[in-house]
């Protein structure tokens, strides 16, 4: 069985902007790790970019986690961007209308340019 788990790396490429680089899976099991990464990313950032380039698998529970994250971000008046989504997950963002509350960019650079 494939034992891919979630790996989350937090970077701050520009002042006030954090990137959470997501590798592997986003499922119910990612809950703690994602909440923790979000905490670290939000310390000094108003903008958080979720980089999905290394995403292997996200299921409906993972989408639920993203919504939870969005609720928190709204409360603390942060904006969330996404980049690096495959066509498939982009389509899922559209179907779930996540794309209406998360601005989607092709690449991390494009996202950074947009918020600069």
């Amino acid at each position, binding site marked *: *069985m494939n034992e891919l788990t979630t790996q989350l790396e937090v970077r701050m490429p520009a002042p006030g902007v954090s990137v959470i680089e997501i590798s592997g899976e986003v499922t*119910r*099991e990612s809950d703690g790790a994602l909440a923790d990464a979000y905490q670290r990313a939000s310390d000094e950032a108003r903008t958080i970019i979720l980089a999905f380039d290394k995403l292997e698998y996200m299921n*409906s529970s993972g989408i*639920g986690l993203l*919504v939870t994250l*969005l609720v928190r971000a709204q409360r603390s008046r942060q904006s969330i961007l996404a980049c690096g989504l495959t*066509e498939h997950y982009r389509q899922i963002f*559209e*179907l779930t209308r996540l794309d209406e509350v998360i601005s989607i960019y092709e690449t991390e650079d494009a996202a950074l340019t947009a918020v600069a």
Partner: protein
Amino acid sequence: MASLQPTIRRVSLRRPRSAAAPADVAETVTEPVQQATFDDESLALDIAANDPIVAYLESASGAVELATLDLDSPALVELRANGITLVVPLVSNGELIGLLHVGRRRSDQDYSADDRRLLETLAAQAAPAVRVGQLVREQQAEMQARGRLEQELAVAQLIQQNFLPKELPQLAGWQVAAYYGPARTVGGDFYDFIELPDGRYGLVVGDVTDKGIPAAMVMAATRSVLRASAQRLQEPGAVLARVNDNLCPDIPENMFVTCFYGVLDPATGHLLYANAGHNLPLVRSGSESSELRATGMPLGLMPGMNYEECETTIALDATVLLYSDGLVEAHDPAREMFGTARAVEVLAADREAEPLIADLLGALESFGAGHQEQEDDITLVVIQRREAAPSSALADFELDSAPGHEREAMRLVGAALASSGLEPARLERLQTAVAEATMNAMEHGNGYSANRPVRVIVSLSESEAVVRIVDHGGDHAIRAAATPDIEAKLAGLQSPRGWGLFLIEKMVDRVDQHTKGSLHTVELAMLLKGGDDATDDA
């Protein structure tokens, strides 16, 4: 044609009648035809039942040259003595019922392959008609004993029963049951199962307006033409159009035929159908009831009609009921009609095919239709899809119910359908739906119990890739509490979760659910030639 006419003779060969004729003697009456007119001279030929020519002709596949026969047969001697050179056996339901025979051609040339084909076609079409004539004649002796009306009814009934299928088709993975209950006055109901050359099955239910012998004869003719057309034409709409054009010139005035004709692929459940004004078949699938709707004029009213063709896929555990108006138009003593709603109610009990027919008849009885004479024939045909034909499965595996195993399901489904022709993007969507349904099955169906695996079956039909996911949760239809709405979720009015079923439904072209005992099945299907996705690139 012209060269054949002078020597065509019309022959009918009577089958031995147990009472009226000695059991070992069959009798033929031959009426010679000259210059295409019948004269009074008739040749009677007796063929003993044990004459070897009977067995020979029953197994012959077409025209037989008498010169080539070497049989110790008195009948053969007599046929030759009458100048007959070629015979075509008339066979109905495996029995020799007569001979079409011709003498030498005027030109003295041999009969060509075309001539023989013409004679064979003529014989194939004449056989059912001759048989009907014989059945009528067989009843004539009793005509005087009983009242004429009673007798006619008996003949009609005899014709009717003679042309209903003797047995039900055996289809792997399907249950089939049928019932025909004639009214005292015998209507013109009929049903049929036609095995087609490509492994598909033609399903027929029809009803001739009018009653008695005329209706029975039109029914027999319709059935024969339909059978012949079904073998030649693929599309049910074209078949009905052909039957209609064939019936129109000959059907008695004020008579017409309603008829449903569907072509079922037993391997996939795909059903292509057309309807000439017959009662709409009912379908029960999961907890849904629906009708198989297609428009078309009844047969025999006017030539050149077109018949709308529709298609559906009969899902696992779904039931289709074909019926005649004798069911839904049965009256209770207060003249209220049984109606389709009551039939739908009976279907909703999700019974097996045979008990379902008993239930329908029971419901008619308790409705009160049984207290008076049955007004019309009642025909019921039930087909149920029970399981996938095993041969069609591309993959069939079990996964232990544990978190994360849904990814294995995705991987195996992906591998099974890699060369299916399904576009990669659509395969990925199907895989996402498979993962969601497998998670549901493991969690809600099997409660993550180690000894309750989830079974995944992947199959491919002409039109669809189908994945079935089976758990042990019994009747626990997956249902979202509410359609997820991102704004409601962000406003805290909905739980952030609850995306599973939404995703499944958005990802695939068709979702069905069925329960059979403790087994719950979710069926996910993706059209192979799709691309009409809900969302395109933004």
